[in-house]
C-alpha cells in the first residue's frame, strides 16, 4: 500500500472533521478497503478509523425498531439482534469469522458492493440509514454498483430496521468468494411484502416488484413459483450466466418465502 496518515477519533464529530481533509477516507472494518489498499488500487492521504467511536457500536430495540450502530460488527449483530432473527441469521453468514469480527454494517452499506448481504436486508426491511447529518430511507439510499446517497465525508452512524412480521434471507454463494451469487431477502410487514435482491443485477441491489405484489396478495410459495424475472439486466460472469442468475432470483425467493412462512 501507499503511505497515508492515520486518525482514530473517539467521536463522530471528530471523525467528520478529520474526513474534511483532502483525499481522506473513512476506515470501518476494512474488509474491502484494506485489500484495496494492499493492491495499491486506492491512495487516500489519510485514513480515519471509526473503530474508536463507542457511540457507533451496539444493538438495541425499541417500539418494534431494531437500531444498529454504524460501527457494529457483523458478529455482534449475529449475536445480539434477537429481535430480528432473519437479520441476525444473515449477519451470521457474512464471509467468515474474521470478516464478521472486523466488518461493520456501516462499512458494508457505505461500500454497497453489488454482492453484499446487508444492502438486501436494508432494502427489504425498509430500513433507515442514519448519518451524521440526516436520515435516508433505504429506497433512496442505494443508487447502483458501489454508489449510494452518501455525500463526501458523510458517516453512517446507525441503521434502523423496523422489525417485520416475517422475514428470511436466502443466499446462494459464489463458489470462490462466497459472496452472494444471488441473495434474496424477503420481509413481510403490515404494509405489504418487500423483496430485495443482491448479487444478481448489473445495477446493484434492487426490489423485485412483481414478487412483492404477488406476495402481498398471498404470502406463499405458490404466489411466486410461476413468476419469472427478465435476465437482461442480470450479471453474467465466470460463475453464472444472466439466465442462471434470473433463475436463482426466483428460486431463492421461493425458498425465502418457504422459510419465512
Amino acid at each position, binding site marked *: 500500500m501507499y503511505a497515508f496518515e492515520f486518525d482514530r477519533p473517539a467521536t463522530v464529530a471528530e471523525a467528520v472533521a478529520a474526513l474534511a481533509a483532502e483525499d481522506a477516507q473513512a476506515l470501518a472494518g476494512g474488509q474491502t478497503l484494506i485489500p484495496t489498499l494492499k*493492491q*495499491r488500487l486506492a491512495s487516500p492521504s489519510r485514513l480515519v478509523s471509526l473503530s474508536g467511536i463507542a457511540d457507533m457500536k451496539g444493538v438495541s430495540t425499541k417500539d418494534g425498531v431494531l437500531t444498529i450502530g454504524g460501527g457494529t460488527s457483523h458478529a455482534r449483530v449475529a449475536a445480539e439482534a434477537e429481535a430480528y432473527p432473519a437479520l441476525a441469521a444473515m449477519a451470521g453468514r457474512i464471509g467468515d469469522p474474521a470478516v464478521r469480527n472486523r466488518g461493520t454494517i456501516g462499512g458494508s452499506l457505505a461500500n454497497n458492493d453489488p454482492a453484499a448481504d446487508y444492502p438486501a436486508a436494508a432494502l427489504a426491511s425498509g430500513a433507515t440509514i442514519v448519518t451524521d447529518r440526516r436520515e435516508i430511507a433505504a429506497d433512496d439510499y442505494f443508487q447502483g454498483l458501489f454508489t449510494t446517497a452518501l455525500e463526501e465525508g458523510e458517516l453512517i452512524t446507525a441503521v434502523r430496521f423496523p422489525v417485520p412480521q416475517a422475514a428470511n434471507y436466502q443466499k*446462494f454463494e459464489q*463458489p*470462490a*468468494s462466497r459472496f452472494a*451469487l444471488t441473495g434474496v431477502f424477503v420481509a413481510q410487514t403490515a404494509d405489504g411484502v418487500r423483496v430485495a435482491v443482491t448479487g444478481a443485477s448489473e445495477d446493484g441491489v434492487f426490489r423485485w416488484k412483481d414478487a412483492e405484489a404477488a406476495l402481498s396478495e398471498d404470502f406463499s410459495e405458490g404466489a411466486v413459483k410461476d413468476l419469472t424475472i427478465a435476465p437482461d439486466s442480470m450479471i453474467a460472469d*465466470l*460463475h*453464472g*450466466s444472466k*439466465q*442462471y442468475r434470473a*433463475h*436463482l432470483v426466483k*428460486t431463492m425467493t421461493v425458498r425465502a418465502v418457504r422459510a419465512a412462512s
Partner: protein
Amino acid sequence: MPKDSGIGASPKRREDVRFLSGTGNYTDDINRPGQAYVHFLRSDVAHGRLNNVDTSAAAAMPGVVRIFTGADFEGVGGLPCGWQVTDRFGEPMQEPAHPVLAQGKVRHVGDPIAAVVAETPEQARDAAEAIEVDIEDLPAVVNMKAALADDATKVHDDLNSNLCYDWGFIEENRDAVDAAIKGAAHVTTLELVNQRMVANPMEPRVAVGEFDRGTGDYTLFTTSQNPHVIRLLMGAFVLGIPEHKLRVVAPDVGGGFGTKIFHYAEEAFCTFAAKAVNRPVKWTSSRSEAFMSDAHGRDHVTRIELALDKDNNFVAIRTNTLANMGAYLSTFAPSVPSYLHGTLMAGNYKTPNIYVNVRAVFTNTVPVDAYRGAGRPEATFQLERVIDKAARELNVDPIALRRQNFVTEFPYATPVAVEYDTGDYTATMDKLEEIADVAGFAERRKKSEQAGKLRGLGVNCYIEACGLAPSNLAGQLGARAGLYESATVRVNATGGLVVMTGSHSHGQGHETAFPQVVAEMIGLDESMVEVVHGDTATSPMGMGTYGSRSLAVGGSAIVRATEKIINKAKKIAAHLLEAAEADIELKDGAFSVAGTDKSVAWGDVTLAAYVPHNYPLDDIEPGLEETAFYDPANFTYPAGAYACEVEVDPETGKVTIERFSAADDFGNIVNPMIVSGQVHGGIGQGIGQALLEQCVYDDDGQLLSASYMDYAMPRADDVPFYSVDHSCGTPCTHNPLGVKGCGEAGAIGSPPAVVNAVIDALQSGGKAVDHIDMPMSPARVWAAMNA
C-alpha cells in the same frame, strides 16, 4: 496387531511440531545481512512488442539500488527446457528462447519486463510503477485451435508456427488402431476439456540470492522441490556458474504440487543480481504474482474414442489432444502431455490397440507444466469418462464393464510402451465396493429423492506410472536429466544416524517416514535417525521430489546406503567379536555371533569406527558413512478404484459430495497414516478440479481468475469425510522396499469419479446429459439440466 515403530507403523509426523508451532524455517524466513529487495514489473498485456523501457525516472526514486531490463540479460542464457520431445515425423519439437527478463516482446500477462532492486520492498514497488514502458499491443493468441490456424499470430516470431510438436504414440500403431475402430461393434466418442489449474501451494515462491565476494561463491535460497536440479539448470544453462561455486538451499517448503519443480526466472534473477549489486537480493511472490507467474497445470482439450467388440471387450482407444504449453516451455512441460500422458492410456484394461496423438501449442498464457499427477490425471479422466459413457450407451453396469476388461495377468506389457509389474485390480474393486457400500446405494438414492435431491454414484479406476524413472528409458524418451536418487547415511561415533537425501520434502513427511525404514533395518529407535535434505552443500546430487518418487526411488537409495553401512559394521563387529564375518547377525541394534551368546552393541561398533584402536585397519577404512545412488529398473504402478456419491440440487445445480471412497494398491506401506493423508490431500485437489477450480483467460489474454475472489479453492466444507483403504497392496517387484508411490493417486483417481457421479445423478432424474466439463459449477450443472 499394528506395529508401534518401524515399517508399517504410524508415528506422528515429527516435522509437524515445528510447522504447527511457528518454528519452521521457510525461505521467506531467511534474511541475509545487507539484503536488498526486488520487485518485478510485469506485463499487463498478453502479447506486445516492447518498443522502449525507460527506467530513468524510476532510477532516481528513493532507495533504488539498480534497475534491470532484458538488455542486462543479453549474453546470459535463457531458462532451459529439460525434456525434448520428438514429433511423429521424427523432428525435434520447436523450442523457443525464454529470457530471464523479456526481450523484444512480452508474451503473457505477468511476463517480467524489468526488475527493480531497492532498499525496501515498498521502494522497489514504488520505483517499478515509475518505469515507463512503451508496448505496441499485438493480437493475443489464447484459444489453442485458433493458435494453430494458418494465419494465426505467432507467439514466437522466430518459430514456424504456434505448434510445439505433433506427437504420435505409438506412431507405428496408428493404422492398426484406425482399422480396429473401423471394424468395431461399438464406438463411444467423447470430447472433453481438462481445464487449466493453478497449483496454489500455501507458501508462495521466494528466492534469496547471495554472492560472496571473498570466495566467489553463490548461494540461492529458494522454494524448490529439487534444489540440485535448480543448481544444475541455473548454473550450467543460465548463469554459467560451475556447481562447485553454487549452493542451492531449499529449506522448509510449504507445498509444491509440481509447480516448485521448475527453474524460474526469479531464481536466476536474484542470483545474478546478487553479484551485480554486491548485496543479497530477495524476492517474495505475492499471491497475485503467483497466479500469473507460477507454472499452471493441465489445460488439455481431447477427443477420445473407445471401440468395443460385440461382447463389450475393449478393442481400441484413439485420442486426439490439444495441450497448452503457454507462452514458453517450462522446465518439464513437453513431457507432461506426451510421455507422462500417453503411456498411461491403457489404464487398468487390456486394450490391444491404442494410439495417442497430442499437439502441443504455444499461446499467450502463463507456461503450463506438471501439476499433481501431471499427464496421468488427464489420461485417467478421458479413459474413465469414456468407459462410463460406453456403459450407458451399451446399457451395461459400469463396474461390470470395467471388471470384464481388467488386466489380470502380470507382468503386463501395454501397447503404450510400459510394463506393469504387479497389481490386482479385481481385489481393489472388490474392496471399493465393500467400503463404498455400493450395495446400499439404491436405498440412499431413494432417501435423497424423497428430499427432492438427485443422487448419483460414480466409480472409476486409475493406474499411474510413478517413481520416476529408469534414467536410460527417460533418456530415450527425451529427458535431458537422469532420474535416479541418492542418499548418504552418516553414522556418528555414538551411534546416531544422519540420512542425507536428494529427495526433498515439501509436506510429504520424509523426516518421519525415512527414519522408520532405517531404524527397522538396523533395529534402532527412530529417534536415533535424522533426515537432512534440501541443501546441495550437504546432500549428494539428487533429483528431488515429484512424480510420487521419494520413497520408491529415494527410499531405495537410503536402503542401499544403509545396507552398505550394515555390511561394514558387520566387518567391524566380526573383528571386535573375533568371529567370521559370515557368522555375524544384526538384530535389535546388536551384533551377535550366530549360535553363541557373544554380542556387541551398535554403539560399540560405531564408536570403534571412529576410535579405531582395535580395528581391522588393514581391511577397511575407519569411519562409517556410505553413499548410494539408486536408479530404478522400472516405474512403479500404483492403482486403485474410487467411488464418489453426490447429491445434486435440481433447482440450483449445486453438487454436494456425500461420500468418497478410495481403495488403493500402493504395494508395501511404510507409514499408513502419512499414506492416508496423501490420499486425502490428493482427493481434495481432485474434488477441487472436478467442482471448483478453473483458471480462465478472456479473448485478450487477460487472466479473469486472478485471485481467490474468482479462483475457487476447495474449503473444508466442500469435501466429505473420506473412506480410504490400502490393504490390497501388491508389492512392487523391483525396488527393495516393495513400495509404490502414493502422492498423486488421489488427484489422479478422483475427478472422473465425481463427474461420473454427477452424470449418474442427472440421468436418474431423467436428464439426457452425458457429459459436463469441469469444474461442474452450479451454473454449469443447471445449464446442462436445462439445455
